[in-house]
């Protein structure tokens, strides 16, 4: 902490804000350290973007854990006198009250304050550079609407690992909360995808970079073309499933072929969407495997050693799971051998294709249906994983496996909406959901493979593609079992059901 930073904090009565921030951070959806206990929160860096009315500070807070580790978070602060309407801010944004020059002032997350958000936009519209106590900020934007007459900035209520804002009908801002070290993964990915010719993503309009000494630029705000009239793939899939289950409930038992026919003849079918999604996914992977990419995003051949390492790691993760003493794992222990066979099959793949950077967190919630077709979003990988791990290169089939598993989850989630396992109709409806998932997995996969075409640079040849895909699907399901046991035990049957039905 430098004197300059202390000066800024002192001026606004924030020298003692650590404890309030600690409580605030622990409550936030975007805070990724919930499983660790926080020792303290300190201010790492600060810049005064606006001195008064509103006071708007760019703040990087460092969260120190009891285990000795720490993480940096991007928490812009707004401060207004207690008499100002912002004093009545939604409590989830309120951080504390402070005494500033003898008057009481409220401190809150600045993104809740339209005036502060407008200042962020002003920086991007004007391509402003600012010095912070420790580093600098560089904002950029091209083709943005003028500030004059800007309507209200919209703060999206759904809290994720980031915070989303939009201005007008055209501009969407993703405010990154966790400031990692190393290059900005999403920036790397968007850049690589653009170079590779991928068009099914939101157009980049600008952003704000945080420039630290000894670190590559970190993008803390992504400004993109707003995707108008978009729906999540998840919502689209559920629309289809609700129709299907309602029909199944009105029928007295269906044979397997009748269940397949019910999916094929369904009005709100999802399969054409799944097929188009398969094509878009293939295009994403063709872009990421473009031989012109270099450095950390270059595609590299998968070696026999890679395959062996993957198989070993997958088996180790499985064994770690099976070591848990949870009774729900009994049946899984019984089929360990069969599961491991799917991993070991990797070792015999002759021509495994290339390893590329991948989306890394690919599921129906990461794709949006728009009037221009499917758009893929959020290229930062799985937020819970360390940055270095998210930047690893894998077979693109790892993404494919993620999406295929997502079809299973959608079928299960729509089933859980309407009934529970103690309902006598549960098994019948589950079977109908399985038929839906299978049809959509097939539609997705066939369109994916067809779009990839004969390009051997991406996929393993011939039947090997299925072997690799299957290994990643199984790996993903094993991970899901572990995750669900820890977070949502009532969901653990979804991956278990998949693993227990695996055929050699």
């Amino acid at each position: 902490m430098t004197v300059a930073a202390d000066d800024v904090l002192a001026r606004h009565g924030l020298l003692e804000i650590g404890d309030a921030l600690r409580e605030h951070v622990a409550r936030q959806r975007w805070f990724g350290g919930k499983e660790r206990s926080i020792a303290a929160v300190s201010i790492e860096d600060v810049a005064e973007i606006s001195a008064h009315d509103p006071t708007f500070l760019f703040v990087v807070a460092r969260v120190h854990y009891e285990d000795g580790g720490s993480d940096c978070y991007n928490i812009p602060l707004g401060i207004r006198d207690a008499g100002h309407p912002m004093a009545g801010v939604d409590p989830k944004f309120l951080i504390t009250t402070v005494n500033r020059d003898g008057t009481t002032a409220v401190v809150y997350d600045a993104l809740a304050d339209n005036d502060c958000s407008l200042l962020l936009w002003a920086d991007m519209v004007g391509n402003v550079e600012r010095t912070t106590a420790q580093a600098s900020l560089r904002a950029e934007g091209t083709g943005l609407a003028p500030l004059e007459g800007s309507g209200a900035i919209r703060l999206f209520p759904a809290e994720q690992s980031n915070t989303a804002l939009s201005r007008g009908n055209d501009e969407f801002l993703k405010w990154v909360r966790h400031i990692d070290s190393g290059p900005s993964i999403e920036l790397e990915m968007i850049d690589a995808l653009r170079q590779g010719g991928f068009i099914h993503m939101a157009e980049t309009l600008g952003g704000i970079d945080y420039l630290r000494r000894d670190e590559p630029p970190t993008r803390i705000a992504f400004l993109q073309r707003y995707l108008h009239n978009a729906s999540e793939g998840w919502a689209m899939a559920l629309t289809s499933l609700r129709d299907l289950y309602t029909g199944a409930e009105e029928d007295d038992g269906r044979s397997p072929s009748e269940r397949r026919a019910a999916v094929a003849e369904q009005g709100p079918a999802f399969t054409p969407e799944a097929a188009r999604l398969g094509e878009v996914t293939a295009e994403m992977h063709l872009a990421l495997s473009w031989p012109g990419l270099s450095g950390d995003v270059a595609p590299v051949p998968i070696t026999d050693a890679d395959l062996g390492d993957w198989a070993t790691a997958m088996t180790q993760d499985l064994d770690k799971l099976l070591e848990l003493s949870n009774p729900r794992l009994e049946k899984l222990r019984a089929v360990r051998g069969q599961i491991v066979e799917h991993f070991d099959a990797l070792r015999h793949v002759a021509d495994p294709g290339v390893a590329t950077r991948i989306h890394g967190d690919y599921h129906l919630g990461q794709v949006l249906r728009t009037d221009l077709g499917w758009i893929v979003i959020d290229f930062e990988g799985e937020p819970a994983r360390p940055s270095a791990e998210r930047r690893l290169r894998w077979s693109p089939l790892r993404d494919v496996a993620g999406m295929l598993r997502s079809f299973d989850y959608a079928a299960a989630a729509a089933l859980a909406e309407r009934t529970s396992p103690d309902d006598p109709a549960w098994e019948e409806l589950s079977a109908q959901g399985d038929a839906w998932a299978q049809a959509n997995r097939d539609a997705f996969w066939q369109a994916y493979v067809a779009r990839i075409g004969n390009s051997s640079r991406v996929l393993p040849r011939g039947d090997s593609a299925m072997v690799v895909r299957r290994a990643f699907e199984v790996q993903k399901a094993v991970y899901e079992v572990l995750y669900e046991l820890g977070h949502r035990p009532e969901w653990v049957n979804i991956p278990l059901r998949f693993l227990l039905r695996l055929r050699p």
Partner: protein
Amino acid sequence: MTQTAPETRTFTTPDKDPLWYKRAVFYEVLVRAFADSNGDGVGDFRGLIDKLDYLEWLGVDCLWLLPFNQSPLRDGGYDIADYYAVLPEYGTVDDVRELVEKAHARGMRVVMDLVMNHTSDQHEWFKQARSSKDNPYRDYYMWSETQDKYNDVRIIFIDTEVSNWTWDDAAGAYFWHRFFSHQPDLNYDNPRVHEEMLDIVRFWLDLGMDGFRLDAVPYLYARDGTNCENLPETHAFLAKVRRTMDEEYGPGRVLLSEANQWPEDVVDYYGTPEAPECHMNFHFPIMPRMFMALRREQRYPITEILERTPPIPDNCAWGIFLRNHDELTLEMVTDEERDYMYQEYAHDPRMKLNLGIRRRLAPLLDNGRHKMELFTGLLLSLPGTPIMYYGDEIGMGDNIYLGDRDGVRTPMQWTMDRNAGFSQADFAQLYLPVLMDPVYGYQAVNVEGQRRHESSLLHFMRRFITLRKKWPVFGEGSFEILEASNPSVFAYLRVLGDQIVLCVNNLSRFPQPVELDMRRYAGMTPVEMVGKVHFPAIGELPYLLTMAPHGFYWFHIQELRT
């Protein structure tokens, strides 16, 4: 020459509102099918005249008459043998004049089908033309010694025609035809053909017609090395027709073109500011996509195509329809669209069943009352001029066993009396049997019965047609798709000055919630437009609505004084 333009007197239209077609509700009517005044089993103009009161009551602004000119009827009247004569079973030119006068007296307008591309081979021009190479009418048509010309041109009626050239023994030459081989194409390189066609236009405008629906316009000219569609010469001729109409008759007459193409290509038929062509064009792809959206229970099939529809000049309008006398067509749209539709339909036996055959609205919607209402709501509130097909206002069915053309052309069902009140003829004498099945038959579905019941489909139609006409915003307002959190809900804003209308449609068979971003109208109140029910005021939070299955709402967004 036997055919010349008879004497006519000029007739003025009801008023001089030049943009009437943007706010009007059109009604497509088949004279043959509507009402038979003389008991010969075939509908006629006098019968139609008798039903004008009904059409006025319903709220129709403009009748579109399917072809009624003298014709051998080998293509539903699209094979005209005399442009100045009326099919005798329909009546006389004087009957048409009387229809137009009586329609005008009620504030209604009338447009007629006009086939410019070709005539029947029974037309006097063709008879003359084929008689000898020196005949002055020879050059009215397109002749060739060989078939090796215009080789890049597709055959439209691929099921019945093997070539666009047909040998004519009498002429000793091949003649060119884009449609059936009994429909020779006129030769628009001949200036006399231009004059003939403009005289025909003048004749019917003099009689009082308010405009024309131009059949098959993209094909007027042929040029080697092209696909002979949408050629610049064709556009130039359409501009000439428009200029003639505007200069000689002033504004207020309308040209509605049938160019069954992709919207971004169809816009060319509106012409340019310097050389305007048609006032209206049909928007073809939106119709099958509405059925698709309902089936998929999501809005994207519709919003995609609207996204791809270019803006059109302010004084122009799209003609939109739910059903007409043609099939739910996949033909004559682009390959890309056909691929999309086939990809969607390929595994869907229910939808495949409905392709390529002609069905009416009610059977296509499983006779679902809520679906019919939802579709009518969409038709009346989407940007464009709604064109209804006779009988759909009472939910008439079809008879697919009558075959291709006739299944959707059965007699209008007026009453539950003999022959549905359509005709006093013997049943066997009817041009087509009236529908008699228990669901759609005339005893269950007829105008008389539905007029008696306020809750009938017919009263619903009338109520919403009336509402649409009260609000110019539906015809002239801007259109913006609204962000809706639920893919089954299709919401949009229509705005014209302070007429701010919000339309919300649930495409799902289940009740659905939806959150709309309405903050730009914070503080204002949505007032439901039929019952004037005041909904909660709009605030800063997303505006929540709950939608009944296949339900729809129209709201006027108002600043309420409290």
